[in-house]
């Protein structure tokens, strides 16, 4: 049982010891960072494999008063993403970061602690606390380059993120005021007597607050600015985990606290699907305009999140499976893409599309990874992005969102326009002599690992889907979740 608790505690402890080691013993820095990442991976795998049937851990045996942690397939999906991304992130960052390493890794571990807390907790206020831990350390990480642009972008990020947190806190307080409890299982039971309009308003605050963190258009504006000059390995975690964890919290709150029937009745499903379609169409249009690779990938993240939103909000079993699968796939694909850009940035400080001209011939394997990941994210077979998009479209059609399904295909076409632009530049020969710092194996290996996962999950999608197939059981029917939580 302790494994789930340790998943939150161990990164916190690591962050603490990293701070200590900075003051006293600098030598153990490297073994501490990697060692704890490996132990953490082991812990995650332990928790993920025991995630079905769902389990509840109440800390300190305080029962419903104390803190409850719950592991169900949906939270273990996020633990799986942490497991896949975190070790490559650590290995990559070791070599990549040329600035002060201590701060960077301390914040990275804090952020992971926050995210794993968010996905495990079964308490609304804890959720808010962990959200703040992860958002603030995420802001701190994005600042690490300390360039003018980086500071400006982070400032915008901080302001918008705080605005979002404010509304989430407001909604949390309102919920507590109305129901007198913050336990996820007790709220839905107490919610039954609350008038429809008041519930709608609380839901609107939750959705608005989290949408700011997720970055749906027009709440997205901070995102490309923040990505533009932040450490690139951080972008991997940011688009793969920070944005996704906000999405996790939103889904958890809406499906468990409000329940699918209320979502349907109040029209939230229709609104979010429509919002998603608008978001990815505009995001694709804007992505084509970008000349900076990080900004381009940021817009692409916004668009992909919109696909995920559509999948999760069509309100059927197939939709939840498809959306969850796309969450995993997007983390992998975007991770691979950002790492490739990170290598280019490391080797010849490339940031613009123009800067990577001709690199396809200098870095054949890395460029091939980029091609694979970008075709995957566009959604072409036989890569993983295609499988999850196929499932999303199928689910949308089943739930009678025909326009959404159609526009997803249009979006696929639009996303090809800008990714292909980058690929063509990558393979255009140039006369210029380039000064290249050779990227070592520690930069290449994580990149290739994520790139090859794109192919593996594309050809054998049943591998991750065996986990996803259990997700709807605990979301669509909130009674199941409540029963387990109260019973535990």
């Amino acid at each position, binding site marked *: 049982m302790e494994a789930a608790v340790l998943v939150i505690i161990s990164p916190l402890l690591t962050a603490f010891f990293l701070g200590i080691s900075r003051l006293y013993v600098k030598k153990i820095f490297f073994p501490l960072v990697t060692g704890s990442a490996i132990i953490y991976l082991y812990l995650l795998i332990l928790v993920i494999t025991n995630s079905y049937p769902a389990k509840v851990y109440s800390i300190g045996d305080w029962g419903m008063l104390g803190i409850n942690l719950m592991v169900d397939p949906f939270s273990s999906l996020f633990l799986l993403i942490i497991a896949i991304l975190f070790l490559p992130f650590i290995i990559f960052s070791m070599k990549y970061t040329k600035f002060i390493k201590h701060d960077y890794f301390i914040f990275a571990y804090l952020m992971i602690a926050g995210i794993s807390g968010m996905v495990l907790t079964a308490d609304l206020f804890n959720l808010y606390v962990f959200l703040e831990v992860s958002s603030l350390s995420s802001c701190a990480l994005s600042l690490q380059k300390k360039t003018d642009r980086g500071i400006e972008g982070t*400032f*915008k990020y901080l302001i918008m993120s705080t605005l979002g947190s404010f509304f989430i806190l407001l909604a949390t307080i309102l919920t507590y005021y109305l129901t007198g409890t913050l336990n996820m299982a007790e709220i839905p039971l107490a919610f039954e007597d609350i008038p429809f309009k008041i519930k*709608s308003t609380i839901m609107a605050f939750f959705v608005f607050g989290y949408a700011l963190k997720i970055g749906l258009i027009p709440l997205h*504006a901070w995102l490309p600015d923040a990505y533009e000059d932040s450490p690139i390995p951080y972008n991997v975690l940011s688009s793969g985990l920070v944005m996704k964890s906000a999405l996790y919290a939103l889904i958890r709150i809406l499906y468990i606290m409000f329940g699918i029937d209320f979502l349907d009745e109040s029209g939230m499903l229709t609104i979010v699907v429509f919002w998603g379609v608008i978001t990815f169409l505009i995001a694709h249009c804007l992505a084509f305009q970008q000349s900076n690779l990080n900004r381009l990938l940021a817009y692409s993240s916004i668009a992909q999140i919109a696909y995920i939103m559509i999948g999760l909000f069509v309100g059927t079993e197939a939709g939840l499976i498809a959306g969850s699968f796309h969450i995993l796939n997007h983390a992998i694909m975007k991770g691979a893409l950002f790492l490739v850009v990170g290598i280019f940035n490391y080797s010849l400080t490339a940031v613009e599309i123009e800067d990577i001209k001709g690199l396809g011939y200098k870095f054949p394997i890395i460029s091939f990874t980029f091609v694979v990941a970008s075709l995957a994210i566009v959604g072409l077979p036989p890569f993983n992005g295609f499988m999850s998009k196929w499932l999303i479209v199928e689910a949308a059609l089943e739930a009678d969102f025909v326009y959404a399904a159609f526009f997803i295909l249009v979006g696929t*076409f639009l996303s090809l326009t800008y990714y292909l632009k980058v690929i063509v530049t990558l393979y255009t020969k140039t006369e210029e002599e380039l000064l290249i710092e050779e990227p070592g194996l520690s930069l290449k290996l994580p990149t290739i690992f994520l790139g090859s996962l794109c192919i593996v999950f594309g050809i054998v999608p049943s591998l991750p889907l065996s986990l996803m197939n259990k997700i709807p059981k605990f979301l669509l029917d909130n009674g199941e979740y409540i029963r387990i939580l109260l019973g535990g």
Partner: protein
Amino acid sequence: MLTPGFLYITGALLLLLPINNKIKYIISFLITAGALIVTFYLIPGNSLQLDFLKLTLIPIKVDSISKLTGLIFAFAGLAAVIYSINICSLPNLRLIFVFIGSALTVVFSGDLFTLYVFWELMTISSSFLIIMASDFTKKTGYYYFLMHVAGSLSLLWGIFLQYSATGSLSLNAIEAGTPFFLIAIAVKLAFVGFHTWMPLVYSKAPFYVAVVLSIYTTKVGVYVMARLVSGINILAYAGLISALFGIVMALRQNQVLKLLSYSIIIQVGYMIIGISIGTAAGISGAMFHLVNHILYKTVLFMAVGVVIYTTGKDDFENLGIMRSKLPVTSIATLVAFLGIAGVPFFNGYMSKSLIKDALHEPLLKWGLDLMSFGTSLLFLKFIYYAFFKNSTMNLAKKPTISMQLGMGFLTVMMILIGIHPYLLENLTNMHVDFNYFEMKHILSGMQPFLWSILIFILFKKYVVKKYDRLLYYDMYRKMATLFVATGYQLSNYHDGKLNKYLLWATTTLIILLFLLMFNSHLLL
């Protein structure tokens, strides 16, 4: 079960190993010849099932039509790989293998999912082949990729509609979403209006790429059309219009490769007409025409490729080198010319008269004659430059043996089919009750050819004239400009001012509350 497509894709993977030239030859030969043999021994009626997620896939299903198409694909693949093995680089050879492999898998696929996946894989591999092949084809490759992906997404949408309407992915006649299937096929087989990629790509890409692409891209479109949307009679007229457009455009071209590309549009017109009749005779005529077309058009592309290889350009003037310096190429070209012109005792004649015989409407019959006439007229121009005009060209370098070998294979096959047209029928058990050597068929086959010679001699100065390049209106580029302009307008709003961001956020909150307060089912 070993499938030819799988064999090719394995070949592409084997070529990833660090190998020297000799092993490259051995692998290529084994794979291409092996695929031909495997295809030859596939038994119609065989199929294989595979469970994938919730779908039941049939990655291979053989019947007489797919076997015939598969045979000619494998045969032409052998010839094309031999032809280009010395010219193209190793990465390109891999892409060619993936391309041929996916084309073969499409032909033998038994369900729409497999069909779509490999259809898209064809697009990806051929686009990268174009992009990687030379420095001048980046934009062309971009255009080609986008256009074909638009086509295949249309196919995907059609598949989704069909799947949600019928609940099955089997490869039967389409019930829902026919227009989307038609758009997808139209892009692939370069129907007029959707053809803009073809002359562009085939004239700009290196000639060996054009050879490989011209064998499969359009023909896969034809095959899938025969499979999914045969028998829509009105399309016969569409095919006729497309072909007539092809003739007009082809006559204006100054580049030989462009002439050949437009002539593909004409030939595909025959196949569309044959398929649209919908009768067994019409469809088998169209499929036989597909076989013959692959043979002679590939030989013509290869011959022009030899000319480009030896002289460096594909102007009509350069064709003159054939007569004096390139004997093998000359013979191959002549045989291919007589085939494409539909002269009796050469291969094109057989399928053309089959399609003509299956037709019953006088307008279409007359149109078919017009198409044959146009085809032979524009290839007379080709022949005129190749054999009758004096030329003072010199060989820059000699054509390689492998190029001539690849061309020779196809030429021998053409002659065989021409002399013994029943060969194709016996090979696949597709029997059509037709006597090719009856006097009336021979006469009607000869007529357009003789007329075209007469017209060519009378109006030679118009046909052989050098026309100005026609700058035509490209709708797709206009649409792209619109997309870029919209994006530009939108990105202007995003100027980095924080108060603007906050304004957007507030507006969103207000709209969200508004939508939730009033029932949004009515609003959206």
